[in-house]
């Protein structure tokens, strides 16, 4: 977490972003935030994020759209739901982070692991963990690959890594569901349009 004093200029703010976000089904939850910070205090990754979950909600209210969408915060969310379980206003902050991940994904941030995960789900119908890890690593940090080879070999020998993906018969159905999601307005579509 960094603490920089920075002047935020009125002309850089986009109050429309808050209206947009709260118009999303589930997004309206942040209207009831009382900025108590219980979420930040409960989050196992709060110290690693550039802005805590509480701060992100405050920034959304202020219309600091660029800072919110460029923030690392959603990508440190491990979906542990500690914040959601403790929020005195019953805000499911994990869902808020999902919405934010989806929106910032469209802007091409931090997304490779998640977009590869999505592509593999649609292609095979089931996750092919070996390919996911390999492709994600090649895209983000190929230098780490040699360090992981011994672990990969040990897992393979224990029968924990499969050489081939398993395909389901309903792959076409999944693709049709995805096409519908693109059409019917996933969050991304609404932001992009």
């Amino acid at each position, binding site marked *: 977490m960094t603490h920089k004093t920075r002047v935020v200029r009125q002309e850089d703010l986009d109050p429309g972003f808050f209206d947009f976000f709260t118009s999303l089904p589930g997004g309206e939850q942040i209207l009831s935030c009382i900025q108590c910070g219980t979420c930040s205090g409960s989050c*196992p990754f709060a110290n690693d994020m550039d802005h805590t979950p509480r701060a992100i909600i405050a920034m959304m209210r202020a219309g600091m759209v660029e800072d919110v969408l460029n923030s690392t915060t959603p990508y440190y969310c491990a979906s*542990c*739901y500690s914040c959601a379980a403790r929020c005195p206003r019953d805000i499911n902050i994990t869902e808020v982070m999902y919405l934010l991940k989806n929106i910032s994904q469209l802007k091409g941030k931090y*997304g490779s692991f*998640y977009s590869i*995960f999505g592509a593999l789900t649609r292609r095979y119908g089931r996750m092919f963990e070996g390919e996911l890890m390999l492709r994600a690593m090649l895209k983000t940090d190929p230098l780490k690959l040699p360090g992981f080879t011994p672990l990969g070999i040990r897992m393979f020998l*224990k029968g924990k890594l499969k050489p081939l993906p398993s395909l389901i018969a309903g792959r076409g159905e999944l693709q049709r*569901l995805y096409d519908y999601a693109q059409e019917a307005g996933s969050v991304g579509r609404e932001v992009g349009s």
Partner: protein
Amino acid sequence: MKHYAYYPGCSLHATAADYDVSARAVMNHLDISYSELDDWNCCGATALASDSYLFSLLAPARNLALAGGDKGDMVVACNACYVAEKRALKAFKEGGEWSKRITEGLLRIDKEIDDDVEVLHLLQVLVNEVGLEEIENRAVCNLEGLKLAPYYGCQYSRPETEGIHPESPMDLERLLEVTGAEVLDFNKKTRCCGSSLMSTKEEHALRLCGEILKEADYMHADAIVVTCPLCQLNLDAFQPRVNGLLGTDYRIPVLFFTQVVGLALGLDPKALGIGKQLTSCSGFLEKYRKGA
């Protein structure tokens, strides 16, 4: 007895194949009637929402539509699948905008969700549906002398599971007590292991795993007992990397609850996939054999 639609999830067909083997062995032994859900797909876990929020509801919704009715309630072994399927079911039942889109989407593939379908974790089925008394009666092997650290991870009890405290569930403790083992009061039992951040932010996830292993080591646990394949993978396969980062020397076996219950039921360790762990279980097995 009820019939269940067993949803193993992708991990149980790969990195956690021993969870699948032991789950089936225990279900068969306890005469639980089940069939694997036909042509199930990946639930999307916690990753899919980042790719497409609506698709992250539709993918698990297809599984929900495949279960229900004669197929039975969905019984899920993996915490991430459990939370993903429950999330889709909740969105569907709430009847709002997402519910409308789930119904519309499924209509495109001529499917619909049975209103009565429920999503259960395999641990709940053992504790609540089979019952502790029945398991105790069937147990032939006392695990006395083994110290077990029950570890649920996050998504068994959170964000919400009816009748269960989000930060202090007790199902695993109650089940393990039936085996005769010493069940530790493990205060990291619902602390996050880092989950998929092990792929994207490894060092940060390793530190969280380090906290959990440290507590288990301090309490002299013979094994950490888990309910989730991703927690198992992070704590077991990545244990040497935790040691490398933190300068520790943890060697704590990480077993699935189905493997421990299977031992108490008198099933063979090999038939339960014990020995497939990357952190050796030989010390644990030696103690078990002495007691048994």
